[in-house]
């Protein structure tokens, strides 16, 4: 905590928007809230299984505007083959215009880096809310860069927007604080991919916040792909507000980081709103991943669906908490939630808790959670055909995971992840291209 207050004091004059009284006041308020509330502890119901105490003991320096010598070729590893995208690249938290591709956007689409957005006083304000959340406050106090995205009504953005957040291996621990702010106009459509990746064993703390307001009858497909370094911390808050008849599909994949905590806060504010969230988290060694989802059905005729799967190996630990609240008067809603976990080792552990709070009577809700191992009968069946035990295990694990991945609409992302997972699960035996017969 001391460390952060000190960092704030050190940086307050240099943070983007420091010249703007409004932004300045906002940052000051936020850091005060962090100072008052302190970091959550295990006594906090939402943090029962995930301790942030080690964070308080480390000295994370806010990443300064150094610009490492990264070239376009270095990015190839992070791009999805054959996927044509608009692209914003951030290196250790800083926007890199030279590596990005957001010029010549079609009419009716705004994609802007956050830092300069904050500096210009003529811009409309960002969406700022949910400040009861300490990590969100911390993000607001420090937000360094990120993306502001707007679509005008009726605009269909054909190419996805790929946001690549790269951390690099540097001296000491450092903090990056991205903020993404997306608002869609009525009847518009956009796909946004947030991709957190590392070059080398970056000792980074990412505290990212995404704010989404889906306008009336708009469509958003949103990806949160976390592949940070195994030394990193990844803390993410994603807030979604949905207007009438809007449809938001989210995909969350968490593969990296020593500790990852991802929170979704979904508000279905108006009739016809639909939110679908697919999630896959994987851990090995001593990785810890925690997903918290809060779905608020505030209006009748809204629909939500969450399907999360976890695969825990080694001595890793997975946490899932999905809470669906159906508010008074929110009749005729449908809410489906499932969380299935696969334990690949005796030391791996999962804590899962689906919760339903219903204050309306005409609703359709289903939820369930399972924790299990690979099915022995399935394994034997494959082996009885001549497939080696390790490959049989890999195949079944892959199939378990692919159920989530296969729901991604962007094929190149799906394929890239499928390949990556096949490589993860198969340690010695080579997978042939798993899809080459499909």
């Amino acid at each position, binding site marked *: 905590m001391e460390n952060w207050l000190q960092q704030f004091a050190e940086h307050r004059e240099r943070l983007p928007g420091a010249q703007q009284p409004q932004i300045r006041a906002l940052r000051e308020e936020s850091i005060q809230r962090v100072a008052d509330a302190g970091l959550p502890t295990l006594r906090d119901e939402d943090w029962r299984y995930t301790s942030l105490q080690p964070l308080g003991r480390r000295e994370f320096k806010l990443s300064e505007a150094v610009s490492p010598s990264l070239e376009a070729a270095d990015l190839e590893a992070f791009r999805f083959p054959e996927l044509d995208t608009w692209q914003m690249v951030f290196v250790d938290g800083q926007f890199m215009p030279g590596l990005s591709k957001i010029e010549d956007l079609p009419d009716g689409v705004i994609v802007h880096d956050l830092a300069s957005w904050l500096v210009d006083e003529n811009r409309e304000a960002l969406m700022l809310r949910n400040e009861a959340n300490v990590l969100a406050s911390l993000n607001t106090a420090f937000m360094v860069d990120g993306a502001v995205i707007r679509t005008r009504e009726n605009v269909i953005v054909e190419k996805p927007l790929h946001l690549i957040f790269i951390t690099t291996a540097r001296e000491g621990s450092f903090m990056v604080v991205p903020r993404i702010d997306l608002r869609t106009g009525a009847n518009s459509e956009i796909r946004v991919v947030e991709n957190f990746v590392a070059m080398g064993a970056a000792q980074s703390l990412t505290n990212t916040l995404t704010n989404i307001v889906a306008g009336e009858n708009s469509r958003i497909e949103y990806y949160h792909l976390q592949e940070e370094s195994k030394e990193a911390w990844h803390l993410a808050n994603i807030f979604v507000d949905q207007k009438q008849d809007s449809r938001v599909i989210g995909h969350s994949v968490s593969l990296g980081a020593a500790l990852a905590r991802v929170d979704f806060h979904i508000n279905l504010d108006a009739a016809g709103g639909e939110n679908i969230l697919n999630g896959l988290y994987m851990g090995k060694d001593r990785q810890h991943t925690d997903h918290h989802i809060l779905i608020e059905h505030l209006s009748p005729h809204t629909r939500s669906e969450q399907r999360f799967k976890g695969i825990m190996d080694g001595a890793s630990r997975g946490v899932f908490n999905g809470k669906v609240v159906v508010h008074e008067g929110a009749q005729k809603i449908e809410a489906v939630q499932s969380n299935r976990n696969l334990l690949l080792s005796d030391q791996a552990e999962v804590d899962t808790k689906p919760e339903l709070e219903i204050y309306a009577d005409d609703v359709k809700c289903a939820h369930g959670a399972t924790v299990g191992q690979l099915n022995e009968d399935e394994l*034997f*069946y494959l082996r*009885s*055909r001549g497939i080696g*035990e390790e490959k049989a295990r890999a*195949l*079944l694990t892959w199939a*378990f995971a692919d159920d989530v991945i296969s729901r991604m609409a962007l094929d190149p992302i799906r394929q890239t992840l499928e390949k990556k997972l096949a490589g993860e699960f198969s340690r010695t035996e080579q997978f042939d291209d798993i899809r*080459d*017969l499909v």
Partner: protein
Amino acid sequence: MLEINNLHVTVDGKEILKGLDLIVNKGEIHAIMGPNGSGKSTLAYVLSGKEGYEVTAGNLLFEGKDLLEFSPEERAREGIFLAFQYPVEIPGVNNAYMLKAALNAQRKHRGLEELDAMEFMALVKEKVKLVQLKDDLLQRSVNEGFSGGEKKRNEIFQMAVLEPKLAILDETDSGLDIDALKIVAEGVNALRSPERSMIMITHYQRLLNYIEPDFVHVLADGRIIKSGGKDLALELEKRGYDWVREEAA
């Protein structure tokens, strides 16, 4: 080809097979009949190496090699195939992919060149006709959502692709209507060869009208208590098992 001597098998602490003897020579078809729970599937599982089936006495020799030394996949690669009584559904694992992986693992074991996707699909096209399996089932998850008859046909289709030396068909005929039974039987007959042996487990003499066995055995109380030719099956169907048991006692 297969020699089983005095086989004793325990499952969950309960002795199921109690001194079973059986010899299957190259090219022979043996039918095994017997009451429910007599240990027929247990025998099939022990031959293919399923875990949890503890052999407490006796031995299993396949082409002179001690089968108990081999894992399930090694047995398959050596040429043993089990058509399951209840084929397992495997969500998310593509039928064709699974079979290609299986075939190539077996070919590799035998020092043969692995097949690429094109060669494999050509082979599949040929074999799939044998059991009249719909093409689209190949592109679905293994057995997922298949009807009972489709699952059984899929087992025989896999056998056709893998070309085992010894096939164990565990009640492949159960639950099939007469048309489906004919198709399956034709498929099996097409795979008969002087090099290939089969053990057919069945409750129904009907199957043996279509696939003629060389021997019929009665498995009861964990042992083969009577053996004979195909006429034995007719007699069993008429008179049940009790008289055989009494005779044996």
